[in-house]
């Protein structure tokens, strides 16, 4: 196959259908940007969940030597207090399983969660708290633990993590579903546009393809310019989608949200960079496959 010939055919085709090509590029770019955005939002949720979120419902933070407050007035939690707390926890009916997290482990998980954030270096291992992480048989029975352990000597705080994070995750999930719906719609629009563009393209070049067929050009050779045309339009669209995502990450997250909300760890560049190749692959393959199946119908070979 002669590359130059195919390339010039593609150039002619794309220019002939300039408006349609433009529409394909825009719709592919928007749908892929939304797809990438929702992937990143999911990544954001799992980043925020940290190590324990899916495993336990309630955390009992134990006193560290630096902690203030009534229940910690006597300094760090003692071994005696710890074993008493553990025994009492296991006695409760609502408790399914109790995990113990040492200060070192807590530091390790903390470093993992905030590895992209300046917060990572702000704490040292001896500032971390030991904790009991409790899995409940019935997650709604948080109150039982609250009344039983809150204010007890050696327990700094009883925290229901879900209570603080759940509304935020619900919001994120809601936005995610909305983004996915819009993406699905845009994807359908993009597919229909591609099908139509290829059809118009095949029709406007029916003389050429007819002659190609006549003189014995292989079907691969006849179809290739159309498929590459769609793939190139898709590639340009995917390129725009990538630019949109990178700009979104830079301006929305790095320059805006991160300045205002210091305590949340946002998705890092590595997550963005993981998403980009996926977007490009989908952006190229989807139009190419759509073109291929359209040609089977509209281009007799």
């Amino acid at each position, binding site marked *: 196959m*002669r590359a130059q010939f195919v390339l010039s055919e593609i150039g002619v085709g794309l220019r002939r259908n300039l408006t349609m090509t433009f529409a394909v590029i825009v719709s592919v770019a928007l749908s892929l940007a939304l797809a990438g955005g929702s992937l990143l939002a999911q990544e954001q949720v799992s980043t925020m969940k940290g190590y324990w979120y899916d495993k336990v419902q309630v955390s009992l933070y134990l006193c560290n030597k630096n902690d203030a407050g009534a229940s910690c007035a006597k300094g760090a939690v003692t071994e005696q207090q710890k074993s008493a707390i553990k025994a009492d926890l296991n006695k409760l009916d609502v408790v399914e399983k109790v995990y113990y997290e040492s200060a070192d482990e807590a530091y390790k998980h903390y470093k993992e969660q905030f590895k992209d954030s300046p917060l990572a270096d702000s704490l040292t291992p001896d500032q971390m708290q030991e904790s009991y992480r409790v899995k409940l048989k019935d997650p709604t029975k948080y109150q039982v633990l609250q009344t039983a352990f809150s204010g007890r000597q050696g327990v700094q705080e009883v925290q229901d993590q879900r209570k603080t994070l759940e509304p935020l995750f619900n919001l994120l999930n809601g936005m995610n579903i909305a983004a996915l719906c819009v993406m699905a719609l845009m994807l359908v629009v993009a597919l229909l546009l591609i099908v139509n563009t290829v059809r118009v393209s095949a029709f406007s070049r029916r003389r050429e393809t007819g*002659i190609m067929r006549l003189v014995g050009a292989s*079907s691969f050779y006849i179809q290739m310019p159309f498929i590459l045309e769609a793939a190139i339009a898709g590639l340009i669209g995917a390129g725009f989608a990538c630019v949109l995502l990178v700009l979104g990450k830079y301006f929305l997250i790095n320059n805006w949200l991160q300045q205002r909300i210091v305590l949340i760890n946002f998705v890092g560049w590595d997550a963005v960079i993981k998403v980009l190749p996926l977007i490009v692959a989908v952006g190229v393959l989807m139009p190419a496959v759509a073109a291929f199946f359209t040609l089977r119908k509209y281009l007799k070979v």
Partner: protein
Amino acid sequence: MIRFDSVSKSYPKQNRPALRDVSLEIERGEFVFLVGSSGSGKSTFLRLILREERASSGQVHVLGKDLARLSNWKVPQMRRQLGTVFQDFRLLGNKTVGENVAFALEVIGKSRGQIRKTVPEVLDLVGLGGKEDRMPGELSGGEQQRVAIARAFANRPMLLIADEPTGNLDPQTSVGIMKLLDRINRTGTTVVMATHDQQIVDQMRKRVIELEMGRLVRDQSRGVYGYQH
């Protein structure tokens, strides 16, 4: 070269078959006229040879191959050994004469060197030497048909199929085209030509195959266009 064994062809939604039980053989190097009124099955006959259609029953052999058993992806290979010429020339109006011929060679993957050598040669052969850079629109009908013949012949096919190549041309121009086809035939290429042109058939005195309502009604060597009814 071409063999039909009791070939029938019917199209969906049509009661009468386009071809009914046609059997014949065309040898290498022959020049054959295919005559018959419109709707007699001439076009179907040619389409079966080009494998644009498949026979409903019977067997079609072209260049030693059973077309019913030729898989789809091998059809282009088969068509490269065939040249085709049509009444409406089928040239690309936005390409020059030379580019039109070169296009046919490009799309079957010939090298640029080969194309540069072949195009002037074959244009010389059809009597259009030096008109390589003209646009088809600037040429007369006869000249355009010569370009189409050059394109069909560029790959040196074993078999040339011509569907009323003189149908759009005046008698004098037609004679020139027939001389050209005759010359191509003398190089060893088999020519099958469907035509309505009585004068040409009567003058050339070649084999004549006549179809009527899809049946083969006459196969005559050195024949004329038709009996006087």
